């Protein structure tokens, strides 16, 4: 087990290096940072000077090497746009994103699993069919439209919930949280729903499909033959067996919740790293973009690792490695 984790960690480092490398190649195509940093009257000579100072004229590998060396020391440079240290900037935005992502993931998991179980157990029920169809709206409309639709209904027309921002947050020094204030809790509702819709649909469909498969397994029939209660059968025996594929996808989705938060955060002016990233793309703020990508790469790597470990926890068959006859 430990060897496995070590091996995966080694691979993870390679993954992150690859992410950084591709990110660096990519920055050449996102635009020219200098063009958005100088004012309209800066002369060509001035622009050239700035480019030189930022090291943008150095060979690509030198810039990359410098970035890696600095990043290893936790130094991601200074944001071109906001002129503050990137590490600090990212850290101050992280709580917002993480709280949003976790809330969305929780909504997606809880409702996705419940709805999935419900629709699987009542396959012919019209309510289940309605849930299945309705959930698809979540994947067939662009996020920005869903977000704006929710804002229009709940903020403008009904005036129940705030339309933007994070409300009042509690500053704990190293973390800011909106979970303990009323406005904070109200503010997270709409963005969390918007963000979770897609994952919820996916998880629901997955759980339903897996449940249908599992419910027809012999061990479920045998559990019934042993006279176990319906709840024990559906939620303990059947659901646990659907978990392996659900964990894979849910894990991947938790990662994509963070990348998916780009649009949601922008629509709701949620002060997380997603909206920070998008504003940085608009002005080619390379240090912030690089830090963001590294961070997301890191999240994926960690999530994948956790998923692999969870397999072991959930499915005892995997615990002894590959020992299997035919």
């Amino acid at each position: 087990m430990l060897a496995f984790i070590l091996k995966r960690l080694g691979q993870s480092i390679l993954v992150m290096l690859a992410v950084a490398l591709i990110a660096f190649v990519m920055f050449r195509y996102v635009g020219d940072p200098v063009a958005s940093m100088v004012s309209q009257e800066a002369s060509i000579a001035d622009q050239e000077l700035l480019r030189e100072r930022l090291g943008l004229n150095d060979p690509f590998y030198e810039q990359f090497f410098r970035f890696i060396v600095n990043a290893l020391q936790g130094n991601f440079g200074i944001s071109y746009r906001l002129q503050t240290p990137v590490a600090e900037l990212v850290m101050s935005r992280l709580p917002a994103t993480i709280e949003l992502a976790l809330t969305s993931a929780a909504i997606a998991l809880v409702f996705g699993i419940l709805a999935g179980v419900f629709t699987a157990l009542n396959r012919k029920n019209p309510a289940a069919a309605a849930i299945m169809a309705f959930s698809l709206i979540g994947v067939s409309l662009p996020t920005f439209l869903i977000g704006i639709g929710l804002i229009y209904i709940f903020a403008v027309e009904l005036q129940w919930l705030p339309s933007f921002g994070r409300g009042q947050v509690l500053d704990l020094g190293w973390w800011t949280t909106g979970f303990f204030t009323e406005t904070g809790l109200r503010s997270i509702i709409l963005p969390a729903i918007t963000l979770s819709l897609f994952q919820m649909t996916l998880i629901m469909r997955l759980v339903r499909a897996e449940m249908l498969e599992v419910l027809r397994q012999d061990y479920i029939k045998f559990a019934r033959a042993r006279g176990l209660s319906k709840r024990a059968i559906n939620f303990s025996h059947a659901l646990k067996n659907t978990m392996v594929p659900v964990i894979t996808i849910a894990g991947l989705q938790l990662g994509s919740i963070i990348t998916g938060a780009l649009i949601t955060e922008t629509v709701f002016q949620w002060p997380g790293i997603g909206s920070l990233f998008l504003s940085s793309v608009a002005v080619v703020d390379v240090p912030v973009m690089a830090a963001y990508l590294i961070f997301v790469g890191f999240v994926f790597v960690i999530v994948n690792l956790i998923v692999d470990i969870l397999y072991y926890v959930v499915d005892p068959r995997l615990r002894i490695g590959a020992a299997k006859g035919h």
Partner: protein
Amino acid sequence: MNDITPTAPKSRLARIVDSDIFYSYRTSPVAVVSSIVAAVLILAAIFAPFIAPYDPFNPRTLNLMNGFTPPMSESFSGSYFLLGSDHQGRDVFSAILYGSRVSLMVGLSAILFAMLLGVTLGLIAGYRGGLTDTIIMRIADVQLSFPSILIALLIFGIARGIIPPNQRESMAIFVLIFSIGLSDWAQFARTVRGSTMVERQKDYVSAARIIGVKPVFILIRHILPNVLGPVLVIGTIGLALAIIAEATLSFLGVGVPPTQPSLGTLIRIGQQFLFSGEWWILFFPAITLVLLALSVNLLGDWLRDALNPRLR
């Protein structure tokens, strides 16, 4: 297993009509309705030039003063717009027909491309295992770290370097397909890899190996047909997502030109007029997209259940 031994061979058509899948199709109203809806939308897109009253992609025929005509009314210059017109004086109905064409072409091609790539890599990873598997799956990790937007920007930037300038705009659509496809392959690869690892243990694979069938043919002819089920299902959800992704990318300047809007681009444009009262510019394209996604996905659901012999 119910032992039914039909005496005479039936014709191909008769066999299809008689098959369990077709039976399950006939008896499922959802499948019938959604396949009709999907067929209508797809046919309308294919035959757009014959159905559409106007050619919204030809800027010469547009009259700006016709802009913002409400549905079912006559415009400034006397044209009749069934679903109204947009901010450029384009007929929304025609724009939807033509736009669906672009969207379906991009969406389908991108998904097919993603499938092709993902399934191939998934098969190889699952069959070979070991180092090959590790490498392919870690590449998938890397890919997943990048929002598709950035992948598209990267590819577009590289393409810009390769493609001669006067062909850039016409190549844009292929770059788009390539970008969306490239950001979607990982999930196919993961799914296929899992199933392949199960299938390759089975004796029918051993039977083929004994007589020396080459691994390529084992993968393509034996394993592939057996792992394709879930792929089709992911593909159907992916179609709607690809169409939406195309809209986002077009906005970032790496997609189709705004003079030839896709369904997604129409939605993005229409969204600007959400508060100002010109609801039809957003509403009709959005409804079209929802219908398309809904019908394709419900078909996918049905197919998943129908392909599973235990659920029949």
